[in-house]
């Protein structure tokens, strides 16, 4: 829209685009480096506090404002990592901690994926209905927003109880399905909002053009609205992935489902008193699940890169 943009000559523009791509490809190792540096700084701060912080913390008027730097409260990083390599318990049959955490992580990742897929499907469907019918938007949108104010903890027992009453033929409702459902309950929200905004994002110019071409809603959706919504949809999908993981972890705990990372976090937290390194292993596990989920969405955005080209300036 800028006048400068319109008078710029094409070679200059193409050059700028090429430079942009070059910057992107050069920027990749740099970005990884900066990211690694961030983690390193965090680790250093942790160790520095253990080194310098008071053993009993800082207490002001009976309130602990800074944590205790004792071995029990804040274990060294190497304690955490050594602990991951050791067996879960002292018994001879115990498997190594990393294996237990990895298995639980995979379990949770699977449930999160199911929740994410269900959530994204429902979110997209809602956005499409709201886009198509103005009435549906005013009827559904407030409920969509309201839905997120219901606390997860309140929802879990309800879902579990309703699920238990479901039974047709060979199908029986299982607990993991309740967890996935709760994960999807969190995941659908950003998708429906993001997709609604994205589907409505084409400017009147493009809408007029489609009208001139005398094409219906479906063709307009496929050729114009959906491609235009990609820029809004991808951040929503990433948010949904994070929400699905958090939803699964929390719902595992509130429903009492065994085998997942949420359950492991609660279980191992009990051991903190005698085995300070142990609770950290499932925490790292849950971070891993989140990273894999985010990475998966990153992969999707790689395929949809074409649709995220800058809007035309003219």
């Amino acid at each position: 829209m800028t006048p400068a943009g319109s008078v710029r000559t094409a070679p200059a523009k193409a050059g700028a685009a090429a430079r942009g791509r070059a910057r992107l490809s050069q920027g990749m190792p740099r970005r990884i480096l900066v990211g690694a540096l961030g983690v390193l700084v965090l680790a250093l701060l942790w160790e520095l506090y253990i080194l310098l912080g008071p053993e009993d913390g800082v207490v002001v008027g009976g309130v602990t404002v800074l944590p205790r730097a004792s071995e029990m409260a804040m274990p060294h990083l190497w304690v955490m990592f050594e602990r991951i390599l050791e067996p879960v318990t002292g018994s001879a049959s115990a498997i190594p901690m990393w294996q237990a955490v990895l298995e639980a992580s995979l379990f949770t990742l699977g449930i999160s994926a199911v929740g994410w897929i269900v959530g994204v499907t429902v979110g997209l469907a809602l956005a499409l209905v709201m886009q198509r019918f103005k009435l549906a938007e005013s009827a559904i949108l407030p409920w969509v927003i309201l839905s997120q104010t219901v606390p997860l903890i309140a929802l879990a027992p309800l879902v579990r109880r309703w699920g238990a009453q479901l039974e047709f033929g060979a199908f029986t409702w299982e607990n993991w399905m309740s967890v996935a459902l709760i994960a999807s309950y969190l995941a659908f929200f950003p998708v429906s909002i993001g997709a609604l905004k994205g589907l409505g994002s084409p400017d009147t110019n493009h809408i007029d053009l489609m009208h001139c071409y005398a094409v219906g809603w479906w063709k307009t959706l496929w050729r114009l609205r959906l491609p235009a919504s990609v820029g809004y949809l991808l951040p929503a999908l990433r948010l949904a992935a994070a929400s699905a993981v958090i939803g699964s972890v929390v719902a595992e705990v509130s429903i009492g489902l065994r085998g997942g990372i949420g359950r492991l976090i609660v279980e191992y937290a009990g051991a903190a008193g005698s085995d300070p390194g142990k609770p950290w292993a499932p925490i790292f596990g849950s971070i891993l699940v989140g990273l894999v989920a985010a990475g998966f969405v990153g992969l999707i955005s790689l395929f949809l890169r074409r649709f995220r080209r800058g809007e035309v300036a003219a």
Partner: protein
Amino acid sequence: MTTAARPVQHAVEVTEVSRVFAGRKGASVTALDAVSLTVAPGEFVSLIGPSGCGKSTLLRLIADLDTPTSGSIEVFGKTASQARIDQDYGIAFQQAGLLPWRTVTGNIELPLELHGAGKAARRERAAELIELVGLTDFAGHYPDQLSGGMQQRVAIARSLAESPSLLLMDEPFGALDEMTRERMQNELVRICAETSAAVVFVTHSIPEAVFLSNRVVVMSPRPGRIRDVLGVNLGRMSDRGENLREDAEFFHSVSRVRELLHGDTPTGARGVETR
């Protein structure tokens, strides 16, 4: 078609058309008041007038992007709506309005694709049009890699994709700088000579209107009316070229249009570029 029995069909026939926009609290704006206009096949007609004279509204009515409050519009003897459904016209706006995720070729192919043309036919037609607008080296470029003038050329190529007999253009060169603008005008004259389509062209610029048109329709605002229609005697489209801008007849027509625009208000019509 029995040309002997029926009179020659108009490309566009606007009869006593009014468009009133309902404002808030009963206030209404009359954008067009009893406007009548005919455009012959192959004729280039410019609509010129100050901002708010309803020239864009008239174009949108012909394109069936809006419906008149009263009066009738026929395009090739059909209702405007039927003409739109039959794809009897191509359209270009002030904003190029290209889809940013499609290449130049992809953008030009869009109308063909939407109306079910085969892939090979699409490719062929797009290549033809890309050559027509002189963008052969940029066929695979995306819109954000093109200058404003190039984007507008793609938009014009797209409007020509289905070989319409009528082109509707709403200030297509309005956002371009003066040099690019004159070059685009030269090209449009050439393209029109090659396609022999009728054109309804909305503009702010007097020289642009004169240079391009067979007839210039001068409009006045509040309410939007046709003040006068001026025939331009600058020869056939195929004979018009850069040196026409130095022609005495060209200057004569420019001052005629200017006089008509200023009309009975000697202070000058605001919002009209006299460049």
